[in-house]
């Protein structure tokens, strides 16, 4: 299988605090790759470095063998790599449908073409058909017309996934897609993700709740204080003494960071 995302020795330090230290991970195409680790271990920072929200201090990020280190987020979006956020960030002044449409391109985004409806309505109708299909996939079909501010926590997470899907991305990084969601809904969200994986998408998922997410994962990376401490198939990583120590043995220290 092809490597879709490769980070080579990515390091990110904030004024001396090393948040990510020499992290090298590989995400293979059409897999569900999981990134686990206690709070403050640098998972989100690593994803931020990959998606252009942050610029890595050193190291390289390769997407489909193209060097995307330090690119702007909207450029990285264009090559087919999108992300969701840990805290869902819906566009609250837009409907659920427009939240999804916003991630699709349309000639009417140019202010020169926007005033003439003819220039963009056709494309927008096409996009809407696609968006409704995507909303159906994540189970939000009935809520298309609602303001996104009226959705619940689980629905907001699904909306984040839908926003990622709508771009036609090849790789979607989900930051804690089931954080703060009850187990039943969490399972539902991950089932949607698993179905989408069958359609050929690749997922890089940051997750705390290993118990629920592990059965879906193909490959797992474990992080602690900025370092990759273990990697492999889920069973192997979860039984790794180093991982167990991080989560249980030194749990009090890890939490206090």
């Amino acid at each position, binding site marked *: 299988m092809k490597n879709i995302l490769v980070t080579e020795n990515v390091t990110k330090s904030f004024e001396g605090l090393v948040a990510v230290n020499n992290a090298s991970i590989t995400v293979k195409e059409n897999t569900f790759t999981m990134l686990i680790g206690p709070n403050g271990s640098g998972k989100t920072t690593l994803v931020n470095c990959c*998606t*252009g929200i942050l610029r890595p201090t050193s190291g390289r990020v390769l997407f489909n063998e193209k060097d995307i280190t330090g690119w702007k987020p909207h450029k990285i*979006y264009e090559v087919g790599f999108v992300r969701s956020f840990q805290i869902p960030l819906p566009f609250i002044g*837009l409907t659920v449908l427009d939240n999804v449409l*916003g991630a699709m391109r349309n000639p009417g*985004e140019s202010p020169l073409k926007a005033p003439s409806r003819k220039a963009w309505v056709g494309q*927008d109708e096409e996009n809407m058909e696609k968006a409704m299909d995507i909303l159906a996939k994540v189970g939000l079909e009935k809520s298309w017309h609602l303001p996104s501010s009226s959705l619940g926590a689980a629905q907001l997470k699904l909306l984040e996934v839908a926003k990622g899907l709508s771009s036609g991305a090849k790789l979607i990084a989900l930051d804690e897609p089931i954080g703060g969601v009850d187990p039943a809904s969490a399972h539902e969200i991950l089932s949607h993700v698993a179905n989408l994986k069958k359609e050929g998408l690749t997922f890089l998922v940051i997750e705390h709740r290993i118990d629920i997410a592990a059965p879906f994962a193909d490959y797992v990376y474990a992080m602690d204080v900025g370092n990759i401490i273990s990697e492999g198939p889920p069973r192997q990583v979860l039984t790794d003494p180093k991982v167990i120590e991080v989560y249980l043995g030194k749990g009090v220290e890890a939490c206090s960071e």
Partner: protein
Amino acid sequence: MTTETGIKSSLKEFITRKEVPVIVIVLALLTYLFASRGVPIILTIFIDFAVFAIITMSLNLETGYAGVPQFGRVAAVIAGAFAVGAIPGRILAWFMDLPYGLEYASDAVNFRIVPEINALLASSWLLSIGFLLFSLIIAAISGALIGWIISRPAIRLKEAYLGISLLAFGDFLMWVGHNWSGMVGGSVPIYVPDPFRIFAVDRFTVIVLVIFVAAFMVFIYMNRLARSPFGRSMRMIRDNDISAAAAGIDVVKVRTQSLVIGSAVAAIAGGLYVIYTGTCTAFGFQKLTWTFWPWAFMMLGGIGSTLGVLLGVFLLTILRTMIVIFRHQWFGFLLNIGIDPLWLEFTLLGAVIIGVILFMPHGLVPEKVEPMLPKSRVNKIIESRRLAKGE
């Protein structure tokens, strides 16, 4: 589908559009205007309404949709006013072999040149119309330029910091104009050539009409922009710029575009205003009038709602203009207890802003959350999907 139902549905779509109630209101106002021809107070209120409607709609584009805290609206208005005050008159003076350099703006020369230019303008329809259009284009270009310049800090700064830097920039042009007498006369007002001179006694009524038409066109333009993919991008950035960037929106580009468009539109209002008053002076453009009043109009009407903004401008302009005109007649008694009625305008502004924040933070007509696509098309798609599923 037959053509008949097509016509019917398009007619229905037309009637339910927001433009229609506005057209009705405008027509009613204009009827009233012509019925009460020659009453200067009413003309003043009308012109104030139309000019501030344009400015507030432009502010609403930048603040209400794109989320830029535009506390420097006055900068773009001044850019338009100075451009119209300084450039078209000079060009005509150059053609007429009159002094057109720095001396054009000097108080000893200006009051002699401009009547000559006016006499020429009054002799030709073509020249008058050309002069007006050229003035507005010049105003829009200089406004767009100023918008582009002030959008540069908008790349790096956010929220309060951006607001403060825009606020500081707002007065910058006023002070340049005040101290550089070679441009628009510095502290002495210069005359602006009058393309409406040709209408003689009907001048004011025609100006009102022209400014109204301009305001109406801006209204349609803003409505179109707001309900388009461009409007969607702007709202995405307003709601969350990081998330918008992650959804593939070039945040810097969209912010710049909104500032350039908004500033160009506001500059047109500034240009129209100096053509109406016939004079241009730097101190005539204070941030109280040209930044904070538009903010109050927008807040009362509803941030992010073009129709609401018009309503806010309408209600408050009447109140404000009445106070400005009549403060000494009606509130002269305040002088006896040592309060200058001059402050009433400020008091009203503060009271409106506080009242709106406390009692209706979303304004009179809150922003509606609805799809950008026209409703009829959305319904068609939803209906066809339902049918496809049922089969």
